[in-house]
Protein backbone atom coordinates (compact mmCIF):
# COMPACT_ATOMS: atom_id res chain seq x y z
CA UNK A 1 0.00 0.00 0.00
CA UNK A 2 2.78 2.37 0.94
CA UNK A 3 4.31 2.20 -2.56
CA UNK A 4 1.13 3.65 -4.01
CA UNK A 5 1.18 6.63 -1.66
CA UNK A 6 3.50 9.28 -2.99
CA UNK A 7 5.08 12.06 -0.98
CA UNK A 8 6.89 15.27 -1.83
CA UNK A 9 10.14 13.65 -2.94
CA UNK A 10 8.31 11.30 -5.31
CA UNK A 11 6.95 13.94 -7.67
CA UNK A 12 9.77 13.84 -10.17
CA UNK A 13 7.66 14.80 -13.16
CA UNK A 14 5.90 18.08 -13.79
CA UNK A 15 2.77 16.62 -15.32
CA UNK A 16 0.69 13.52 -14.65
CA UNK A 17 -2.42 12.06 -16.19
CA UNK A 18 -5.26 9.80 -15.08
CA UNK A 19 -8.84 8.94 -15.96
CA UNK A 20 -10.31 10.03 -12.62
CA UNK A 21 -8.75 12.56 -10.31
CA UNK A 22 -10.24 12.57 -6.82
CA UNK A 23 -9.55 15.65 -4.70
CA UNK A 24 -9.67 14.51 -1.08
CA UNK A 25 -9.35 11.17 0.69
CA UNK A 26 -11.99 11.54 3.41
CA UNK A 27 -15.44 9.98 3.66
CA UNK A 28 -16.67 11.12 0.23
CA UNK A 29 -13.44 10.89 -1.76
CA UNK A 30 -12.34 7.49 -0.48
CA UNK A 31 -15.66 5.83 -1.35
CA UNK A 32 -15.72 7.40 -4.82
CA UNK A 33 -12.12 6.37 -5.51
CA UNK A 34 -12.57 2.82 -4.27
CA UNK A 35 -15.70 2.26 -6.36
CA UNK A 36 -14.08 3.68 -9.48
CA UNK A 37 -10.82 1.78 -9.05
CA UNK A 38 -12.73 -1.45 -8.48
CA UNK A 39 -14.49 -0.86 -11.77
CA UNK A 40 -11.19 -0.69 -13.56
CA UNK A 41 -10.75 3.07 -13.75
CA UNK A 42 -7.33 4.67 -13.46
CA UNK A 43 -7.58 6.77 -10.27
CA UNK A 44 -5.33 9.31 -8.58
CA UNK A 45 -6.26 10.80 -5.21
CA UNK A 46 -4.95 14.22 -4.21
CA UNK A 47 -4.54 14.80 -0.50
CA UNK A 48 -3.22 17.99 1.04
CA UNK A 49 -2.20 16.31 4.29
CA UNK A 50 0.45 13.70 4.89
CA UNK A 51 0.18 9.94 5.20
CA UNK A 52 0.26 8.78 8.81
CA UNK A 53 -0.38 5.07 9.24
CA UNK A 54 -1.76 3.67 12.48
CA UNK A 55 1.68 2.56 13.72
CA UNK A 56 2.89 6.17 13.66
CA UNK A 57 0.23 7.37 16.14
CA UNK A 58 1.38 8.36 19.60
CA UNK A 59 -0.28 9.66 22.75
CA UNK A 60 1.42 13.01 22.21
CA UNK A 61 -1.81 14.92 21.66
CA UNK A 62 -0.26 18.22 20.56
CA UNK A 63 2.00 16.57 17.99
CA UNK A 64 -0.80 14.41 16.63
CA UNK A 65 -3.11 17.41 16.41
CA UNK A 66 -0.44 19.32 14.49
CA UNK A 67 -0.03 16.38 12.09
CA UNK A 68 -3.61 15.38 11.47
CA UNK A 69 -5.57 18.65 11.57
CA UNK A 70 -5.74 21.62 9.24
CA UNK A 71 -3.71 24.57 10.54
CA UNK A 72 -2.59 22.42 13.48
CA UNK A 73 -6.15 22.40 14.78
CA UNK A 74 -6.87 26.11 14.50
CA UNK A 75 -9.50 27.07 11.95
CA UNK A 76 -12.01 29.65 13.14
CA UNK A 77 -15.40 30.41 11.66
CA UNK A 78 -15.38 34.16 12.22
CA UNK A 79 -18.47 35.65 13.79
CA UNK A 80 -19.91 36.54 17.16
CA UNK A 81 -18.84 34.30 18.76
CA UNK A 82 -16.10 32.86 16.59
CA UNK A 83 -16.42 29.10 16.34
CA UNK A 84 -13.49 26.71 16.38
CA UNK A 85 -13.66 24.27 13.48
CA UNK A 86 -11.67 21.06 13.77
CA UNK A 87 -10.96 19.69 10.30
CA UNK A 88 -8.88 16.67 9.43
CA UNK A 89 -6.06 17.19 6.94
CA UNK A 90 -4.29 13.88 6.35
CA UNK A 91 -4.71 10.78 4.21
CA UNK A 92 -8.14 9.53 5.31
CA UNK A 93 -9.35 13.06 6.11
CA UNK A 94 -11.98 13.54 8.78
CA UNK A 95 -12.54 9.80 9.18
CA UNK A 96 -9.14 9.56 10.88
CA UNK A 97 -10.00 12.06 13.61
CA UNK A 98 -13.72 11.61 14.19
CA UNK A 99 -15.57 9.52 16.74
CA UNK A 100 -16.39 6.79 14.17
CA UNK A 101 -20.14 7.24 14.57
CA UNK A 102 -22.10 5.99 11.59
CA UNK A 103 -25.76 7.00 11.59
CA UNK A 104 -28.51 6.76 9.04
CA UNK A 105 -29.81 10.06 7.78
CA UNK A 106 -32.97 10.86 9.77
CA UNK A 107 -36.09 10.17 7.72
CA UNK A 108 -37.47 13.66 8.38
CA UNK A 109 -34.30 15.21 6.92
CA UNK A 110 -34.53 13.05 3.80
CA UNK A 111 -38.21 14.01 3.46
CA UNK A 112 -37.20 17.66 3.75
CA UNK A 113 -34.63 17.17 0.97
CA UNK A 114 -37.17 15.47 -1.26
CA UNK A 115 -39.83 18.10 -0.69
CA UNK A 116 -37.72 21.25 -0.59
CA UNK A 117 -34.90 20.36 -2.97
CA UNK A 118 -36.68 17.91 -5.25
CA UNK A 119 -34.18 15.16 -4.55
CA UNK A 120 -35.45 11.91 -6.00
CA UNK A 121 -33.59 8.70 -5.39
CA UNK A 122 -32.26 9.77 -2.01
CA UNK A 123 -35.10 8.54 0.18
CA UNK A 124 -34.66 6.13 3.04
CA UNK A 125 -35.57 3.12 0.88
CA UNK A 126 -33.14 4.06 -1.89
CA UNK A 127 -30.28 4.81 0.50
CA UNK A 128 -30.89 1.77 2.69
CA UNK A 129 -28.75 -0.51 0.52
CA UNK A 130 -25.86 1.93 0.75
CA UNK A 131 -26.12 2.24 4.51
CA UNK A 132 -26.00 -1.54 4.71
CA UNK A 133 -22.97 -1.60 2.41
CA UNK A 134 -21.17 1.06 4.43
CA UNK A 135 -22.00 -0.72 7.67
CA UNK A 136 -20.57 -3.94 6.27
CA UNK A 137 -17.49 -2.27 4.79
CA UNK A 138 -16.71 -0.37 7.99
CA UNK A 139 -17.64 -3.10 10.41
CA UNK A 140 -20.24 -0.92 12.08
CA UNK A 141 -21.36 -2.33 15.40
CA UNK A 142 -23.65 -1.16 18.14
CA UNK A 143 -21.59 -0.45 21.21
CA UNK A 144 -22.37 -2.80 24.07
CA UNK A 145 -23.36 -1.78 27.57
CA UNK A 146 -20.30 -1.90 29.81
CA UNK A 147 -19.95 -2.29 33.54
CA UNK A 148 -16.36 -1.17 33.98
CA UNK A 149 -15.60 1.12 31.07
CA UNK A 150 -17.22 4.18 29.57
CA UNK A 151 -18.90 5.03 32.86
CA UNK A 152 -19.61 8.56 31.66
CA UNK A 153 -21.71 7.16 28.83
CA UNK A 154 -23.32 4.59 31.11
CA UNK A 155 -24.41 7.35 33.47
CA UNK A 156 -26.06 9.15 30.56
CA UNK A 157 -27.89 5.99 29.61
CA UNK A 158 -29.18 5.38 33.13
CA UNK A 159 -30.19 9.00 33.70
CA UNK A 160 -32.04 9.08 30.36
CA UNK A 161 -33.98 5.98 31.33
CA UNK A 162 -34.90 7.57 34.65
CA UNK A 163 -36.13 10.71 32.88
CA UNK A 164 -37.96 8.68 30.27
CA UNK A 165 -35.79 10.13 27.51
CA UNK A 166 -34.85 8.06 24.49
CA UNK A 167 -31.23 7.03 24.62
CA UNK A 168 -29.40 4.42 22.64
CA UNK A 169 -26.04 2.74 22.36
CA UNK A 170 -24.19 4.27 19.43
CA UNK A 171 -23.34 2.50 16.20
CA UNK A 172 -19.65 2.95 15.49
CA UNK A 173 -17.20 1.89 12.79
CA UNK A 174 -14.82 -0.02 15.03
CA UNK A 175 -13.37 -3.48 14.97
CA UNK A 176 -12.60 -4.57 18.52
CA UNK A 177 -12.38 -1.12 20.10
CA UNK A 178 -9.87 -1.18 22.95
CA UNK A 179 -11.20 1.97 24.62
CA UNK A 180 -7.89 3.62 23.76
CA UNK A 181 -9.52 7.04 24.16
CA UNK A 182 -7.61 8.53 21.25
CA UNK A 183 -10.27 8.85 18.51
CA UNK A 184 -9.66 12.57 17.82
CA UNK A 185 -5.92 12.12 17.36
CA UNK A 186 -5.86 8.86 15.43
CA UNK A 187 -6.89 5.46 16.78
CA UNK A 188 -3.79 3.99 18.40
CA UNK A 189 -5.14 0.42 18.35
CA UNK A 190 -6.23 0.59 14.73
CA UNK A 191 -9.75 -0.44 15.75
CA UNK A 192 -11.40 2.55 14.13
CA UNK A 193 -12.41 1.69 10.59
CA UNK A 194 -11.46 4.97 9.01
CA UNK A 195 -11.02 5.41 5.27
CA UNK A 196 -7.31 4.93 5.91
CA UNK A 197 -7.85 1.23 6.69
CA UNK A 198 -10.96 0.49 4.60
CA UNK A 199 -11.84 2.25 1.34
CA UNK A 200 -8.39 3.64 0.55
CA UNK A 201 -6.62 0.25 0.69
CA UNK A 202 -9.37 -1.13 -1.53
CA UNK A 203 -8.72 1.60 -4.05
CA UNK A 204 -4.94 1.12 -3.88
CA UNK A 205 -5.29 -2.63 -4.30
CA UNK A 206 -7.04 -1.88 -7.56
CA UNK A 207 -4.32 0.31 -8.93
CA UNK A 208 -5.19 3.74 -7.51
CA UNK A 209 -2.44 6.08 -6.33
CA UNK A 210 -2.51 8.70 -3.61
CA UNK A 211 -0.56 11.91 -4.09
CA UNK A 212 -0.14 13.07 -0.51
CA UNK A 213 0.88 16.60 0.54
CA UNK A 214 -0.64 17.90 -2.67
CA UNK A 215 -3.01 20.84 -2.50
CA UNK A 216 -5.33 21.45 -5.44
CA UNK A 217 -4.92 25.13 -6.23
CA UNK A 218 -6.92 25.74 -9.39
CA UNK A 219 -8.95 23.81 -11.95
CA UNK A 220 -8.20 24.72 -15.54
CA UNK A 221 -11.35 24.44 -17.63
CA UNK A 222 -12.71 25.40 -21.03
CA UNK A 223 -15.87 24.76 -22.96
CA UNK A 224 -17.75 23.43 -19.93
CA UNK A 225 -15.10 20.82 -19.24
CA UNK A 226 -12.39 20.64 -16.61
CA UNK A 227 -9.05 19.82 -18.29
CA UNK A 228 -6.38 19.76 -15.64
CA UNK A 229 -5.59 20.84 -12.14
CA UNK A 230 -2.72 22.88 -10.77
CA UNK A 231 -1.30 21.36 -7.62
CA UNK A 232 0.96 22.85 -4.99
CA UNK A 233 3.21 20.35 -3.26
CA UNK A 234 3.16 21.11 0.45
CA UNK A 235 6.23 21.42 2.68
CA UNK A 236 9.68 22.55 1.65
CA UNK A 237 10.10 25.14 -1.09
CA UNK A 238 7.66 26.04 -3.87
CA UNK A 239 6.88 23.11 -6.10
CA UNK A 240 3.98 22.73 -8.50
CA UNK A 241 2.74 19.91 -10.66
CA UNK A 242 -0.16 19.54 -13.08
CA UNK A 243 -2.51 16.63 -13.44
CA UNK A 244 -4.79 16.21 -16.42
CA UNK A 245 -7.77 13.88 -16.33
CA UNK A 246 -10.97 12.81 -18.05
CA UNK A 247 -13.13 13.25 -14.97
CA UNK A 248 -12.71 15.21 -11.78
CA UNK A 249 -14.29 14.23 -8.46
CA UNK A 250 -14.09 16.99 -5.88
CA UNK A 251 -14.32 15.79 -2.27
CA UNK A 252 -12.11 18.12 -0.28
CA UNK A 253 -14.68 18.80 2.44
CA UNK A 254 -17.38 21.41 2.81
CA UNK A 255 -14.94 24.32 3.07
CA UNK A 256 -12.15 23.35 0.68
CA UNK A 257 -14.41 22.03 -2.10
CA UNK A 258 -16.33 25.29 -2.67
CA UNK A 259 -13.10 27.25 -2.19
CA UNK A 260 -11.43 25.33 -5.02
CA UNK A 261 -14.45 25.76 -7.28
CA UNK A 262 -14.72 29.47 -6.57
CA UNK A 263 -11.01 30.07 -7.05
CA UNK A 264 -11.28 28.32 -10.37
CA UNK A 265 -14.21 30.53 -11.39
CA UNK A 266 -16.52 27.58 -11.74
CA UNK A 267 -19.48 27.86 -9.40
CA UNK A 268 -20.63 31.15 -7.96
CA UNK A 269 -23.14 29.40 -5.74
CA UNK A 270 -20.56 27.23 -4.04
CA UNK A 271 -19.75 28.25 -0.50
CA UNK A 272 -22.68 30.58 0.09
CA UNK A 273 -24.64 28.26 2.29
CA UNK A 274 -22.21 26.41 4.53
CA UNK A 275 -24.11 24.79 7.35
CA UNK A 276 -22.70 23.19 10.46
CA UNK A 277 -23.54 21.69 13.80
CA UNK A 278 -22.70 23.51 17.00
CA UNK A 279 -21.07 21.50 19.77
CA UNK A 280 -21.44 22.81 23.29
CA UNK A 281 -19.08 21.15 25.71
CA UNK A 282 -19.95 20.80 29.36
CA UNK A 283 -17.52 19.56 32.00
CA UNK A 284 -19.27 17.69 34.81
CA UNK A 285 -17.88 16.64 38.15
CA UNK A 286 -19.46 13.62 39.75
CA UNK A 287 -19.44 12.42 43.32
CA UNK A 288 -18.09 9.01 42.30
CA UNK A 289 -15.06 8.22 40.26
CA UNK A 290 -15.78 7.74 36.57
CA UNK A 291 -12.27 7.21 35.29
CA UNK A 292 -13.73 8.34 31.99
CA UNK A 293 -10.30 8.18 30.37
CA UNK A 294 -10.72 4.40 30.50
CA UNK A 295 -13.30 4.52 27.79
CA UNK A 296 -13.95 6.06 24.47
CA UNK A 297 -16.17 8.76 23.09
CA UNK A 298 -19.77 8.84 21.93
CA UNK A 299 -20.72 5.29 22.91
CA UNK A 300 -24.17 6.41 23.99
CA UNK A 301 -26.45 9.00 22.42
CA UNK A 302 -29.36 10.75 24.10
CA UNK A 303 -31.80 11.10 21.19
CA UNK A 304 -35.03 12.21 22.83
CA UNK A 305 -34.88 15.60 21.11
CA UNK A 306 -33.17 14.62 17.87
CA UNK A 307 -36.09 15.93 15.80
CA UNK A 308 -35.41 19.32 17.29
CA UNK A 309 -31.78 18.86 16.35
CA UNK A 310 -30.31 18.06 19.77
CA UNK A 311 -28.10 15.11 20.67
CA UNK A 312 -26.20 14.67 23.94
CA UNK A 313 -23.15 12.42 24.21
CA UNK A 314 -20.15 11.78 26.44
CA UNK A 315 -17.10 13.19 24.72
CA UNK A 316 -13.45 12.25 24.66
CA UNK A 317 -11.64 13.13 27.87
CA UNK A 318 -8.02 13.90 28.62
CA UNK A 319 -6.53 16.54 30.87
CA UNK A 320 -5.73 18.57 27.77
CA UNK A 321 -9.35 18.65 26.71
CA UNK A 322 -10.65 19.45 30.20
CA UNK A 323 -8.26 22.40 30.47
CA UNK A 324 -9.10 23.60 26.96
CA UNK A 325 -12.83 23.27 27.56
CA UNK A 326 -12.41 25.29 30.74
CA UNK A 327 -10.08 27.85 29.17
CA UNK A 328 -12.56 30.67 29.83
CA UNK A 329 -12.28 29.90 33.55
CA UNK A 330 -9.45 31.01 35.84
CA UNK A 331 -6.39 28.87 36.40
CA UNK A 332 -7.42 28.44 40.04
CA UNK A 333 -10.71 26.91 38.90
CA UNK A 334 -8.92 24.70 36.39
CA UNK A 335 -6.54 23.48 39.10
CA UNK A 336 -9.46 22.77 41.37
CA UNK A 337 -11.45 20.90 38.73
CA UNK A 338 -8.46 18.88 37.56
CA UNK A 339 -7.66 17.83 41.11
CA UNK A 340 -10.76 15.63 40.77
CA UNK A 341 -9.88 14.39 37.30
CA UNK A 342 -11.08 10.83 37.94
CA UNK A 343 -14.54 12.20 38.74
CA UNK A 344 -14.87 14.27 35.58
CA UNK A 345 -16.64 13.79 32.30
CA UNK A 346 -16.91 16.03 29.25
CA UNK A 347 -20.28 15.98 27.57
CA UNK A 348 -21.28 17.36 24.22
CA UNK A 349 -24.64 18.81 23.33
CA UNK A 350 -24.75 18.92 19.55
CA UNK A 351 -27.35 21.12 17.93
CA UNK A 352 -28.53 21.78 14.40
CA UNK A 353 -28.51 25.57 14.23
CA UNK A 354 -30.04 27.98 11.77
CA UNK A 355 -26.86 30.05 11.44
CA UNK A 356 -25.27 29.81 8.02
CA UNK A 357 -21.66 30.52 7.04
CA UNK A 358 -20.12 32.01 3.93
CA UNK A 359 -16.82 31.06 2.36
CA UNK A 360 -14.73 33.83 0.88
CA UNK A 361 -12.00 32.92 -1.58
CA UNK A 362 -10.59 36.39 -2.14
CA UNK A 363 -7.74 36.06 0.29
CA UNK A 364 -5.50 33.75 -1.65
CA UNK A 365 -4.73 30.16 -1.04
CA UNK A 366 -6.81 29.62 2.09
CA UNK A 367 -10.53 30.29 2.45
CA UNK A 368 -11.93 32.70 5.01
CA UNK A 369 -15.13 31.49 6.62
CA UNK A 370 -17.52 33.91 8.27
CA UNK A 371 -20.98 33.39 9.66
CA UNK A 372 -23.85 35.37 11.13
CA UNK A 373 -25.25 34.10 14.40
CA UNK A 374 -28.97 33.54 13.90
CA UNK A 375 -30.90 35.00 16.88
CA UNK A 376 -33.06 31.85 17.07
CA UNK A 377 -29.96 29.81 17.83
CA UNK A 378 -29.54 31.49 21.20
CA UNK A 379 -32.82 30.08 22.52
CA UNK A 380 -31.94 26.72 21.03
CA UNK A 381 -28.56 26.77 22.76
CA UNK A 382 -30.15 27.74 26.08
CA UNK A 383 -32.63 24.90 25.74
CA UNK A 384 -29.83 22.49 24.88
CA UNK A 385 -27.85 23.56 27.95
CA UNK A 386 -30.94 23.26 30.19
CA UNK A 387 -31.60 19.75 28.98
CA UNK A 388 -27.95 18.75 29.25
CA UNK A 389 -27.80 20.07 32.80
CA UNK A 390 -31.00 18.28 33.74
CA UNK A 391 -29.63 15.03 32.36
CA UNK A 392 -26.26 15.41 34.04
CA UNK A 393 -27.71 16.31 37.44
CA UNK A 394 -29.97 13.29 37.11
CA UNK A 395 -26.85 11.25 36.31
CA UNK A 396 -25.28 12.31 39.58
CA UNK A 397 -23.20 15.34 38.60
CA UNK A 398 -22.56 17.72 41.47
CA UNK A 399 -20.95 20.56 39.52
CA UNK A 400 -21.22 21.64 35.91
CA UNK A 401 -19.00 23.99 33.94
CA UNK A 402 -20.91 25.49 31.06
CA UNK A 403 -19.45 26.78 27.77
CA UNK A 404 -20.26 30.33 28.78
CA UNK A 405 -17.61 32.93 29.54
CA UNK A 406 -18.05 34.35 33.00
CA UNK A 407 -20.17 31.49 34.29
CA UNK A 408 -18.74 29.84 37.36
CA UNK A 409 -19.57 26.37 38.52
CA UNK A 410 -23.25 25.45 38.36
CA UNK A 411 -24.62 23.34 41.19
CA UNK A 412 -28.33 23.38 40.45
CA UNK A 413 -30.84 24.13 37.71
CA UNK A 414 -31.89 27.46 39.30
CA UNK A 415 -28.23 28.52 39.27
CA UNK A 416 -28.10 27.61 35.60
CA UNK A 417 -31.16 29.75 34.90
CA UNK A 418 -29.43 32.76 36.43
CA UNK A 419 -26.48 32.20 34.11
CA UNK A 420 -28.65 31.66 31.06
CA UNK A 421 -30.60 34.86 31.77
CA UNK A 422 -27.40 36.82 31.31
CA UNK A 423 -25.91 34.89 28.41
CA UNK A 424 -25.27 36.66 25.12
CA UNK A 425 -24.03 35.03 21.91
CA UNK A 426 -20.54 36.48 22.25
CA UNK A 427 -20.17 34.81 25.66
CA UNK A 428 -20.64 31.34 24.22
CA UNK A 429 -17.84 28.88 23.60
CA UNK A 430 -18.79 26.84 20.56
CA UNK A 431 -16.88 24.32 18.51
CA UNK A 432 -17.86 22.46 15.39
CA UNK A 433 -16.64 19.31 13.70
CA UNK A 434 -19.44 18.86 11.17
CA UNK A 435 -19.63 21.17 8.18
CA UNK A 436 -21.80 20.55 5.13
CA UNK A 437 -24.21 21.86 2.49
CA UNK A 438 -21.82 24.34 0.86
CA UNK A 439 -22.50 23.00 -2.68
CA UNK A 440 -26.05 21.77 -2.17
CA UNK A 441 -27.59 19.22 -4.46
CA UNK A 442 -30.91 20.08 -6.06
CA UNK A 443 -32.97 20.23 -9.20
CA UNK A 444 -32.91 24.01 -9.59
CA UNK A 445 -29.58 25.47 -10.77
CA UNK A 446 -30.62 28.83 -9.30
CA UNK A 447 -30.39 27.52 -5.74
CA UNK A 448 -28.19 24.43 -5.98
CA UNK A 449 -24.59 23.84 -7.04
CA UNK A 450 -24.84 20.25 -8.22
CA UNK A 451 -27.62 18.26 -9.85
CA UNK A 452 -29.09 15.08 -8.32
CA UNK A 453 -26.39 13.05 -10.10
CA UNK A 454 -23.74 14.94 -8.11
CA UNK A 455 -22.60 16.72 -11.25
CA UNK A 456 -21.72 20.39 -11.09
CA UNK A 457 -24.17 22.45 -13.09
CA UNK A 458 -22.78 23.59 -16.46
CA UNK A 459 -19.69 21.37 -16.21
CA UNK A 460 -19.58 18.08 -18.07
CA UNK A 461 -17.01 16.21 -16.06
CA UNK A 462 -16.96 17.43 -12.44
CA UNK A 463 -18.64 15.43 -9.70
CA UNK A 464 -18.84 16.45 -6.04
CA UNK A 465 -19.11 13.60 -3.52
CA UNK A 466 -18.44 15.05 -0.08
CA UNK A 467 -20.48 16.73 2.67
CA UNK A 468 -20.81 19.80 0.45
CA UNK A 469 -23.59 18.21 -1.58
CA UNK A 470 -25.92 17.55 1.34
CA UNK A 471 -28.73 20.08 0.92
CA UNK A 472 -28.70 21.07 4.59
CA UNK A 473 -27.23 20.08 7.93
CA UNK A 474 -28.66 16.81 9.20
CA UNK A 475 -28.50 16.94 12.99
CA UNK A 476 -26.60 13.66 13.17
CA UNK A 477 -23.04 12.59 12.55
CA UNK A 478 -22.78 12.88 8.79
CA UNK A 479 -20.16 10.28 7.79
CA UNK A 480 -22.74 7.57 6.99
CA UNK A 481 -24.81 9.99 4.92
CA UNK A 482 -21.76 11.27 3.03
CA UNK A 483 -20.68 7.73 2.21
CA UNK A 484 -24.19 6.71 1.13
CA UNK A 485 -24.44 9.75 -1.14
CA UNK A 486 -20.99 9.01 -2.62
CA UNK A 487 -22.13 5.47 -3.44
CA UNK A 488 -25.27 6.73 -5.16
CA UNK A 489 -23.43 9.44 -7.11
CA UNK A 490 -20.76 7.05 -8.41
CA UNK A 491 -23.33 4.37 -9.23
CA UNK A 492 -25.32 6.89 -11.26
CA UNK A 493 -22.16 8.04 -12.99
CA UNK A 494 -20.61 4.71 -13.96
Amino acid sequence: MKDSILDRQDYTEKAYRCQYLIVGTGAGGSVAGALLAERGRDVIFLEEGGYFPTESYTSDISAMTAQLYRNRGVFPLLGKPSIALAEGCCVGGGTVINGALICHTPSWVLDEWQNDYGLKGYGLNELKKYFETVERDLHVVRHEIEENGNLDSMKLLKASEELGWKCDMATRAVNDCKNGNSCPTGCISGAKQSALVTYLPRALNNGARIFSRCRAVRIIHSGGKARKIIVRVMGGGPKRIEISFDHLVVAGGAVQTPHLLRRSGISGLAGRNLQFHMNLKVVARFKDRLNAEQGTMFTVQMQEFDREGLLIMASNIKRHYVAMTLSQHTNEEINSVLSNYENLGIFTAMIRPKSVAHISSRFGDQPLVTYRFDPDDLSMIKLALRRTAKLLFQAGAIELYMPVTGAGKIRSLPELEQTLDRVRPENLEIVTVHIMASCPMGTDPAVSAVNPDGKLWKMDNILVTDASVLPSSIGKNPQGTIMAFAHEIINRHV
Partner: protein
Amino acid sequence: MWKSVLAGMVLENIESLRQYQIMQKRNSNTAEGVFQFVSDVVTNLPWYFHLPVRILAIVTGLLCLITTGRKLNLLPAEKRSSFLRSVRFIPAFGMLNKLVRSMAFLKLFDSLPLSPDH
Protein backbone atom coordinates in the same frame (compact mmCIF):
# COMPACT_ATOMS: atom_id res chain seq x y z
CA MET B 1 9.25 41.53 19.28
CA TRP B 2 6.06 39.57 18.58
CA LYS B 3 7.61 36.37 19.86
CA SER B 4 8.56 37.99 23.17
CA VAL B 5 4.91 39.01 23.62
CA LEU B 6 3.76 35.50 22.76
CA ALA B 7 6.27 34.08 25.24
CA GLY B 8 5.01 36.44 27.94
CA MET B 9 1.40 35.54 27.23
CA VAL B 10 2.19 31.83 27.29
CA LEU B 11 3.86 32.20 30.67
CA GLU B 12 1.00 34.27 32.02
CA ASN B 13 -1.49 31.58 31.02
CA ILE B 14 0.31 28.54 32.38
CA GLU B 15 2.43 29.75 35.29
CA SER B 16 -0.21 29.31 37.96
CA LEU B 17 -1.35 25.90 36.75
CA ARG B 18 -0.34 23.06 39.03
CA GLN B 19 0.61 20.98 36.00
CA TYR B 20 3.14 23.63 34.98
CA GLN B 21 4.58 23.93 38.46
CA ILE B 22 5.14 20.19 38.69
CA MET B 23 6.68 20.06 35.25
CA GLN B 24 8.85 23.05 35.94
CA LYS B 25 10.41 21.26 38.91
CA ARG B 26 11.36 18.41 36.61
CA ASN B 27 12.30 20.33 33.50
CA SER B 28 13.03 24.03 33.52
CA ASN B 29 12.40 24.20 29.74
CA THR B 30 8.66 23.51 30.01
CA ALA B 31 7.64 27.06 29.19
CA GLU B 32 10.03 27.15 26.24
CA GLY B 33 8.51 23.96 24.79
CA VAL B 34 4.99 25.32 25.19
CA PHE B 35 5.97 28.66 23.67
CA GLN B 36 7.58 26.91 20.70
CA PHE B 37 4.41 24.98 20.03
CA VAL B 38 2.18 28.06 20.25
CA SER B 39 4.58 30.02 18.07
CA ASP B 40 4.53 27.26 15.42
CA VAL B 41 0.73 27.28 15.45
CA VAL B 42 0.62 31.05 14.91
CA THR B 43 3.29 30.93 12.19
CA ASN B 44 1.33 28.27 10.31
CA LEU B 45 -1.96 30.14 10.33
CA PRO B 46 -3.21 31.51 7.00
CA TRP B 47 -1.70 34.93 6.38
CA TYR B 48 -4.94 36.79 7.09
CA PHE B 49 -4.86 35.44 10.65
CA HIS B 50 -1.11 35.31 11.06
CA LEU B 51 -0.54 38.92 10.03
CA PRO B 52 -3.08 40.52 12.39
CA VAL B 53 -1.79 38.35 15.22
CA ARG B 54 1.75 39.55 14.60
CA ILE B 55 0.67 43.19 14.33
CA LEU B 56 -1.37 42.91 17.51
CA ALA B 57 1.54 41.30 19.31
CA ILE B 58 3.96 43.97 18.09
CA VAL B 59 1.63 46.77 19.23
CA THR B 60 1.31 45.08 22.61
CA GLY B 61 5.06 44.63 22.79
CA LEU B 62 5.71 48.29 22.00
CA LEU B 63 3.19 49.38 24.61
CA CYS B 64 4.96 47.16 27.10
CA LEU B 65 8.34 48.64 26.26
CA ILE B 66 7.02 52.18 26.51
CA THR B 67 5.15 51.73 29.77
CA THR B 68 7.46 49.35 31.62
CA GLY B 69 10.79 49.74 29.88
CA ARG B 70 11.11 45.97 29.38
CA LYS B 71 9.93 43.22 27.06
CA LEU B 72 6.83 41.37 28.23
CA ASN B 73 8.54 38.02 28.68
CA LEU B 74 11.24 39.60 30.85
CA LEU B 75 8.84 41.32 33.24
CA PRO B 76 8.40 39.97 36.77
CA ALA B 77 5.19 37.97 37.10
CA GLU B 78 3.24 40.61 38.97
CA LYS B 79 4.10 43.40 36.53
CA ARG B 80 3.40 41.13 33.57
CA SER B 81 -0.07 40.30 34.91
CA SER B 82 -0.80 43.91 35.62
CA PHE B 83 0.33 44.99 32.15
CA LEU B 84 -1.73 42.29 30.41
CA ARG B 85 -4.80 43.32 32.43
CA SER B 86 -4.29 46.89 31.29
CA VAL B 87 -4.21 46.04 27.57
CA ARG B 88 -7.44 44.06 27.54
CA PHE B 89 -9.09 47.05 25.88
CA ILE B 90 -7.14 46.46 22.64
CA PRO B 91 -9.58 45.08 20.06
CA ALA B 92 -9.10 41.37 19.36
CA PHE B 93 -6.66 40.98 22.24
CA GLY B 94 -9.15 38.67 23.94
CA MET B 95 -9.26 36.51 20.83
CA LEU B 96 -5.48 36.33 20.67
CA ASN B 97 -5.29 35.36 24.32
CA LYS B 98 -7.92 32.69 23.78
CA LEU B 99 -5.83 31.18 20.98
CA VAL B 100 -2.61 31.33 23.00
CA ARG B 101 -4.29 29.90 26.09
CA SER B 102 -5.93 26.97 24.30
CA MET B 103 -2.83 26.00 22.37
CA ALA B 104 -0.65 26.37 25.46
CA PHE B 105 -2.93 23.99 27.35
CA LEU B 106 -2.85 21.50 24.50
CA LYS B 107 0.93 21.35 24.69
CA LEU B 108 1.37 21.68 28.44
CA PHE B 109 -0.73 18.67 29.31
CA ASP B 110 1.30 16.46 26.99
CA SER B 111 4.05 16.79 29.52
CA LEU B 112 3.02 13.93 31.75
CA PRO B 113 3.52 12.25 34.15
CA LEU B 114 1.86 14.13 36.93
CA SER B 115 2.13 13.52 40.62
CA PRO B 116 -0.28 10.83 41.88
CA ASP B 117 -2.31 13.33 43.90
CA HIS B 118 -3.25 15.30 40.82
